[in-house]
């Protein structure tokens, strides 16, 4: 693991999201509760909708373009839809957001 400090958790509103730019494209970091965060790919596999702009409910997000709903925990599309988004390890420590950078770094190096 290569935990990178990406900012203060308060920078993201509860039930909101912000993006982090990486070599893999944008990662959406979601805040579902005061100290509960998830990170996934920002890109909806359907037609590329920006998931960070979706409405966050429970531990799920609804894509703003055509309403597909994804679990932030598993990355799987809910209901009858099919599709999976990448999920990344992220955690909160002393009010700071830590994202595991090894995945991006490893790929970046390869």
């Amino acid at each position, binding site marked *: 693991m290569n935990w990178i400090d990406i900012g203060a958790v308060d920078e993201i509103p509860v039930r909101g999201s912000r993006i982090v730019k990486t070599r893999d494209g944008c990662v959406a970091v979601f805040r579902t509760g005061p100290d509960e965060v998830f990170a996934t790919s920002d890109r909806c596999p359907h037609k590329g909708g920006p998931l960070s*702009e979706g409405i966050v409910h429970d531990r799920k997000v609804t894509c703003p373009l055509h309403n597909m709903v994804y679990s932030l925990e598993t990355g799987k599309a809910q209901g009858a839809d099919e599709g999976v988004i990448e999920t990344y390890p992220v955690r909160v420590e002393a009010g700071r957001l830590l994202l595991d950078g090894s995945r991006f*770094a490893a790929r970046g190096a390869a």
Partner: protein
Amino acid sequence: MTRLVVIGAGMASGRVLEHLFDAAPGAFEVTLFNAEPRGNYNRIMLSPVLSGEKSYAEIVTHDDAWYAEHGVACRFGERVTGIDRSRKVVTSAGGEVAYDKLILATGSNPFIIPFPGHDLPGVVAYRDLEDTAAMIEAAGTPGASAVVIGGGLLGLEAAAGLRLRGMEVTVLHNTGHLMDRQLDETAGYLLKKDLENRGIRVITSANTKAIEGNGRVERVVLEDGTTLSSDIVVMAVGIRPATHLGQAAGLETGRAIKVDAQMRTSDPDIFAVGECVEFDGTLFGLVAPLYDQAKVLAKTLMGEDDAFRVKELSTKLKVTGCDLFSAGDFTAGEMREDIVYRDPARGIYKRLVIEDDRLVGAVMYGDTSDSTWFFGLIKDGTDIEEMRDTLIFGPAFQGGGGAAADPLAAVAALPPEAEICGCNGVCKGRIVEAIDGGAASLSDIRAVTKASASCGTCTGLVEQVLAVTMGDAYASPAAQPVCGCTDLTHEDVRRLIKSRELKSQPAVWQELGWTTPNGCHVCRPAINFYLLADWPLDYADDPQSRFVNERNHANIQKDGTYSVMPRMWGGITTPAELRALADAAEKYGVPTVKVTGGQRIDLLGVRKEDLPAIWYDLNQAGMVSGHAYTKGLRTVKTCVGSDWCRFGTQDSTGLGIKLEKVLWGSWTPHKVKLGVSGCPRNCAEATCKDVGIVCVESGYEIGVGGAAGMDVRETEPLAKVATEEEAIAIVTAFVQLYRESAKYLDRPYKWIGKVGLDWVRDQLADAEIRAGLIDRFEISQSVYRKDPWAEHAKPDTARRFHPLADLNVEAAE
């Protein structure tokens, strides 16, 4: 203008007038006589009124406002007593009225068998509201009993209604089985059993001898000596066309007034329509053919060609729980073959009659879901040889599918010509066309095609056509919960938020038993709106419950960029504003600058990160958000009005700007668009806006409920006022009323369709209510009449439009 006199305001003439006013508004000056002291109503819905399932108000088809709008001189409660064809006048108690064209639409009179005692008080027919009211009154006495003479459609609907109202009911029918003109013995038997199960006594082969009582009905005595006590006797034994008036005027009559295929009587200026006519030897007693006649007559009056044809009819009974259907000819015969299906356990009976590989008749009881398909086969004379073996199982089993009896599959299998609404002759293809044209709900379909708008028995079918055609996009209307998080409807939630003073989202989730931790993308925007509309000072708008456009105050585009559209108050701009727009477009590399359909300029293709900066620049030039992204006030379109236009009657531009300045920033259940035109030439297209004002010399005509999106609708008049101040007050109060009572995502026209324009008018006409609405609107605007761009361009919020971190940059460092 042609002077058109109409005798009889019934189901047929109402339809004629609708067609005429639709196609040739203003061409006819209409005088409408009606012996009943009221205008047109949906007579066939008297049965639900009798049973208490509907109120009289719900079955009125044309109200005072409608007559007024079309300039109809209403002579209700006035019977026409004579026609003088040489002088072309009709006579009534009120004197004479001259006509150029005359329509006889006198309907039928119920037939009363002259049994001894038939004229005692308490003996009623079943034809109009008075009869219905008399029955309802009789049912008001606890333990009262009724005898219905006649076991046909009308008699049975009367019996079922009276029973539902708690009366002891006996039906007397003179032949061996009920509805013998429409049903065969088996179906008649099943019907009798069903009625008996609901506590109605049925005596078939009954011969009434006398009705007895001392000054009032007390009992009915049969030939065999049976005595039935009764507080009311309903005689429903048939109808006779009301031909007296026509006959006395010397028009050619047979069993009714004779007409040709253009609905013309033997006098070229006199027409007849409805149950009072005889065409080609045929009489009529159901609305479907009358509506066809109405269409033809309207065309004839407008000088267009059309011809009435007699079509095959089908019968249904409007008694909930007694599903029956019959069509065509099902008498047995040598050349005929029957296919019969029975399921005794479920009380299902189906019989098809085939002759020469064609279906000629069908009777069904207990399960009529395939009746439309069978009726289509009968009408079209389809060759059924290939499917004979599985025919009785209906359309779902055709084409080798052997599919389970899925009602949707059956509807999907119907050909476009299959008739769905018998009353209005609407086929499946027409409904699908309406859906393709944007109709998305039952009420839309009713408005566009009239299907399901009369007797309503095809409502389920229409909904199935909607479901089959629209797939998941169709939300079935029956007490639809807000979403999967709750069983409550929008109306419930709105009511509970107010009555239980719920002022936060968690309060709603907890107190109303949401099944999810914090809602979903469907309910959250709605709840957020209800809370901010009802508690503007206590509840703070929640951006996280808003759709991306409303959260980011710009419209997201398909490539993830945004469009930015500032207000141009009332469509007026200045060189300085245009220069600022041009500068911003260049500075932020805006790929497309477009003039919108709403009289302003759209900058398309702005990157999210640039939003706060471009807003800041536009703010500096004095421009604010155009809210092109909101369920809120959008644009106020205006024309040049009296400032410049040689026809302008008032300052339409100025009023538009004032209105936009009052209303901007307010959130509403759906978007709200206004238009103000300087004269009835209506260059601002005000009459297809949610609120449209048309200026006239004497003031301002305010219309509401227009739209020009998926539905195109003309506004309906709300009020006419003399001054700008009054116009602004009415419009403000209207918007607040809409904010307070509409369901989220109902445009004003949908909301008005639910609450009724009369209710809206009444609310706004009451000075106290109006003032309250305006006060509450202003309280809300003290919070929301602010430019969201200015708020979001501040550095603290602006940061949120940027990525949290950029790992590419950090990696490089």
